[in-house]
C-alpha cells in the first residue's frame, strides 16, 4: 500500500509536469509547422514553375531560327538536352497551326497525387516562339513536383525530429530534476504521512534540503511530536479517568449501601424516639406531683426554724458577756506576768550594764595609755626625720650637683680634644697635597731628564731622590691620618660614655630630690599624728569621767527595780485567783451554747435539704419538658432525614448510572487512543 502510494505521488507530480510541458510544446509547434508547410509549398511551386518557364524561354529563343531554317533535327537535339533536367517530364514544340513539330520525354514515370500537402504533380509552362515580329509556334514544357515534394518532405520532417529529440532530452532533464528535488522528498513525506494517518506516531521525519520542503518537513515533525505528546497525555488522562471513575463508582455503590443502612437505622431511631417521648411525658407528670408535695413540707419546716433562731440569739448574747469578762481577767493576768518578766529582765540588764561599764572604763584606760605612748613615738620620729633625714638628703643633692659640674667640665675638655684632632687632620690633608705635588714634580723632572738625554742624567738622579722622598712622606702621612682617625673615634666613644653618665647623674639627682620631698612629707605626717594622739588622750580622759557617772546611775536603777519586783509578785497572785473562778462560769455557758447551736443547725439543715430537693425536682421537671420538646424536634428532623435519605438514594443511583456511562465513554476513547502507536 505504501509503495503504490509512493509511485502514485511520483507519477502524479513528475510525470504530469513533464506531460504538460510536452503538450505545451506540441500545441505551440503545430500551428507553426502548418504555417511553415503552406508558405513553403507555394514558394517551392513558384520556384519549379520559374525553372520550367526558363527552360521554355531557352527553347523558344533558339527554336524560331531552327524552325525558319527547317533544321528540325538540331531542334530535337537541343530539346533532348534540356529534357535531361530531372523535373521536366516532356517538351513539345508546336508550329503556328498547332501541329506538333517535335517532342522529347524524360524517363520519369508519371504519377498522380491528390494530397493537399504536395505540390501538384503535373504542370505545364508555355512560351511563344518568335523571331522579331514573326511567330513560328509554341513551346510546351510539362514538369513534375516530385523533386520539390522530396525537398519539402525533408524540410518538414527533419526539424521536427530534431526538435523531438531535444524535447526528449529537456523532458528527461526536467523529469530528473523534478523527481530528485521535489518528487522524492514529497514521496518520502507522503509515505510518512500515510503511516501517521494509519496511526503510527513513532515515524521519524528525516532532515530535508530545500526551502519549502524543509519547512514542510519541519512543520510535519513538529505536528507529529505535538500530536504524539497530546495522544500520550490523552491516553494517560483516559486511564486516570477510568481508574477514578471506577473508584468513584465503587465508592458510590458503598455510599449507597451506607445510605440504605442509614435509612433503616433512622427508621429505628424514629421508632425508639416515639417510645422515649411517651415515657418522658410520664416522668414529667410524676415530677409535677412530687413538686407539689415538697412545697408543703418546706413551709411547716420554716416555722420551726424561726422559733429556734430566736433561742439561739438569746443564748449567744449570754455567752458573749461571760466570754468578755473572762478575756479581760486573762488579759490582766497576761499583763501582770509580762510586767513581772520585764522587771526581771531590767534587773538582769542593769547588772550586765554595770559589768560592761566597768569593761569600757578599763579599755578606755588602755587607750589612754597607748595614745600617750604613740604621741611619744611620733615626737621621736619627727625629731629623727628632721635632724638626720633632711640633712642627709641635702648633702646628697649638693654632691650630685658637684658631680654634674665635674662631668660637664670633662665633656668640654674632650670636645676640645676632638677639635684639636680635626685641626691635625686638616694639616695632614695639606701634607698629603704637598706630597702629591712633590711626586708630580719628580715625575715631570724625570720626563725632562730623559728627554734631555746624556745631559739630563744627573738631573734624573735628583728626580729619583725626590720621588722616594715624596713616597716616604706619603706613607707617614697615611699612618698619622690612621692614628688620628682612631683617636677621633675613641674621643667620640668617650663623649658618648660621658653623656650617658651625665644622664645617670641627672636621674640620680632627680631621685634624691624625690627622697627629700618624701622626707618632708613624713615629717609633716609625724607631726600630725602626734597632734592627733594628744587629742585622743584628752577625749579618753573626758570619756572616763562620763562613764563613772553612768555607773552610778545604773546602781540606782538596780535598787528601784528590786522594789518594784516585790509589789508585782503580790498583784500577780491575787489576779490568778480571780481567773480560776471565772473560768468555771465560762465552761458552763459554753456547754449550753453548744447544745442550742446543734439543735438549730439540725433544723436548718433539714429545711435546706428539702429546699434543695424542691429545686432539684423543678430542675428535673424543666429538663424533662425541654427534653420532650427536643425529642419532638428530633423526631421531626429524623423524619426529614429519612425523606432526604430516600432522595439521596435516588440521586446517587442517577450519578452511579452517569458514572458507568462515563466509564463506557472513556473506555471507547481509550480504545481510540490505542490505535495510535506512540
Amino acid at each position, binding site marked *: 500500500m505504501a509503495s503504490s502510494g509512493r509511485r502514485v505521488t511520483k507519477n502524479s507530480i513528475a510525470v504530469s509536469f513533464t506531460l504538460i510541458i510536452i503538450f505545451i510544446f506540441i500545441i505551440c509547434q503545430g500551428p507553426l509547422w502548418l504555417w511553415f508547410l503552406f508558405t513553403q509549398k507555394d514558394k517551392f511551386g513558384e520556384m519549379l514553375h520559374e525553372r520550367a518557364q526558363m527552360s521554355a524561354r531557352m527553347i523558344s529563343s533558339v527554336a524560331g531560327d531552327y524552325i525558319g531554317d527547317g533544321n528540325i533535327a538540331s531542334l530535337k537535339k537541343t530539346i533532348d538536352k534540356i529534357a535531361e533536367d530531372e523535373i521536366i517530364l516532356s517538351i513539345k514544340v508546336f508550329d503556328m497551326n498547332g501541329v506538333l513539330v517535335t517532342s522529347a520525354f524524360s524517363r520519369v514515370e508519371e504519377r498522380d497525387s491528390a494530397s493537399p500537402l504536395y505540390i501538384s504533380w503535373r504542370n505545364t509552362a508555355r512560351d511563344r516562339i518568335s523571331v522579331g515580329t514573326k511567330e513560328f509556334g509554341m513551346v510546351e514544357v510539362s514538369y513534375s513536383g516530385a523533386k520539390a515534394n522530396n525537398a519539402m518532405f525533408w524540410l518538414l520532417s527533419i526539424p521536427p525530429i530534431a526538435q523531438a529529440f531535444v524535447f526528449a532530452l529537456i523532458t528527461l532533464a526536467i523529469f530528473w530534476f523534478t523527481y530528485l528535488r521535489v518528487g522524492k522528498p514529497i514521496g518520502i513525506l507522503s509515505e510518512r504521512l500515510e503511516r501517521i494517518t494509519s496511526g503510527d506516531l513513532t515515524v521519524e521525519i528525516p532532515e530535508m534540503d530545500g526551502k519549502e520542503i524543509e519547512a514542510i518537513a519541519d512543520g510535519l515533525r513538529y505536528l507529529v511530536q505535538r500530536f504524539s505528546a497530546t495522544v500520550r497525555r490523552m491516553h494517560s488522562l483516559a486511564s486516570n479517568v477510568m481508574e477514578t471513575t471506577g473508584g468513584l463508582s465503587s465508592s458510590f455503590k458503598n455510599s449507597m449501601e451506607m445510605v440504605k443502612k442509614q435509612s433503616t437505622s433512622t427508621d429505628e431511631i424514629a421508632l425508639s424516639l416515639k417510645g422515649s417521648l411517651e415515657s418522658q411525658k410520664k416522668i414529667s407528670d410524676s415530677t409535677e406531683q412530687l413538686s407539689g408535695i415538697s412545697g408543703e413540707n418546706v413551709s411547716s419546716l420554716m416555722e420551726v426554724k424561726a422559733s429556734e433562731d430566736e433561742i439561739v440569739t438569746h443564748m449567744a448574747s449570754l455567752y458573749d458577756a461571760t466570754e468578755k469578762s473572762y478575756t479581760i481577767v486573762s488579759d490582766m493576768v497576761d499583763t501582770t506576768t509580762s510586767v513581772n518578766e520585764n522587771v526581771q529582765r531590767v534587773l538582769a540588764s542593769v547588772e550586765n550594764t554595770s559589768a560592761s561599764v566597768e569593761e569600757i572604763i578599763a579599755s578606755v584606760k588602755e587607750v589612754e595609755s597607748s595614745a600617750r605612748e604613740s604621741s611619744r613615738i611620733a615626737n621621736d620620729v619627727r625629731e629623727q626625720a628632721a635632724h638626720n633625714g633632711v640633712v642627709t638628703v641635702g648633702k646628697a643633692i649638693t654632691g650630685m650637683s658637684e658631680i654634674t659640674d665635674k662631668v660637664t667640665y670633662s665633656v668640654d675638655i674632650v670636645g676640645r680634644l676632638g677639635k684639636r684632632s680635626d685641626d691635625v687632620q686638616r694639616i695632614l690633608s695639606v701634607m698629603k697635597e704637598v706630597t*702629591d705635588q712633590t711626586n*708630580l714634580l*719628580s*715625575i*715631570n723632572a*724625570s*720626563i725632562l731628564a*730623559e*728627554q734631555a738625554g746624556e745631559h739630563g742624567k744627573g738631573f734624573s738622579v735628583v728626580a729619583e731622590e725626590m*720621588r722616594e722622598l715624596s713616597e716616604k712622606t706619603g706613607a707617614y702621612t697615611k699612618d698619622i691620618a690612621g692614628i688620628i682617625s682612631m683617636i677621633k673615634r675613641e674621643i667620640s666613644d668617650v663623649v658618648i660614655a660621658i653623656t650617658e653618665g651625665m644622664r645617670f647623674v641627672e636621674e640620680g639627682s632627680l631621685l634624691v630630690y624625690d627622697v627629700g620631698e618624701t622626707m618632708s612629707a613624713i615629717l609633716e605626717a609625724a607631726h600630725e599624728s602626734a597632734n592627733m594622739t594628744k587629742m585622743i588622750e584628752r577625749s579618753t580622759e573626758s570619756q572616763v569621767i562620763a562613764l563613772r557617772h553612768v555607773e552610778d546611775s545604773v546602781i540606782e536603777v538596780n535598787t528601784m527595780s528590786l522594789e518594784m519586783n516585790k509589789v508585782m509578785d503580790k498583784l500577780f497572785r491575787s489576779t490568778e485567783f480571780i481567773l480560776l473562778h471565772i473560768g468555771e462560769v465560762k465552761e458552763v455557758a459554753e456547754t449550753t451554747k453548744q447544745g442550742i447551736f446543734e439543735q438549730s443547725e439540725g433544723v436548718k439543715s433539714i429545711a435546706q435539704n428539702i429546699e434543695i430537693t424542691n429545686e432539684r425536682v423543678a430542675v428535673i421537671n424543666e429538663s424533662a419538658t425541654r427534653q420532650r420538646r427536643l425529642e419532638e424536634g428530633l423526631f421531626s428532623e429524623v423524619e426529614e432525614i429519612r425523606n432526604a435519605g430516600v432522595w439521596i438514594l435516588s440521586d446517587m443511583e442517577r450519578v452511579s448510572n452517569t458514572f458507568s456511562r462515563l466509564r463506557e465513554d472513556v473506555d471507547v476513547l481509550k480504545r481510540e487512543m490505542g490505535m495510535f502507536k506512540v
Partner: protein
Amino acid sequence: MEQSLAFRLGQTTLGLDINAAVEVMTPFGVKAIPNMPDYIPGIMKIRGELVPLIDMRVRLGVEPRPTKERAIIVRSIAGKVGLLVDEVFGIMKFDAGKLRKPPVIFLGLKRRYLAGLYGVDDDVIAVLDMNEILSSEEALLLEKARKKKGKKKGKKAS
C-alpha cells in the same frame, strides 16, 4: 733600551712613549664644551695655553675607578692634548725587541690602540700607539674644541 711613562687605567697598567710626554699634572679648572663626544670632557688652560682633554677610561673602554686623577700632557698631531688617567707611576725601561703584539682577546682595551705588550716583574704593561689613539678626524675635532673655547674667550673680551 726604550723608555715609557707608566700609568694606570682601572686595574690595567699601560705605557706611553716618553718622547711624546710633556708633563704630568692634576687636572684643574676643566671647562666643558658643548656638542663633544663623551670621551672629551672639556678643555684646560695651562700657562696660557688651551689644552683639550681626552678621558682615556672612556676612550679605551676601561671601567672607570677614579681614586686620584692625573692628566698626562702629550704632544700629538693635534698639538698638546691632556690624557686623563687614574694614576701615573713614573718612567719604566724596557727592551724594544721584547715588545710583543697583543693577543686577540686582551683585557677590556680596544686592540688597535696598542703598540704591544711587555712584562715587568709580575705585571704586563700595554704600550699605547699614540698615532692610533688620535685619528686625523679626532685631531680636527680637538682643534675645533680649542678654537671654540678661544672664540668664546675673544667674544667675552670684546
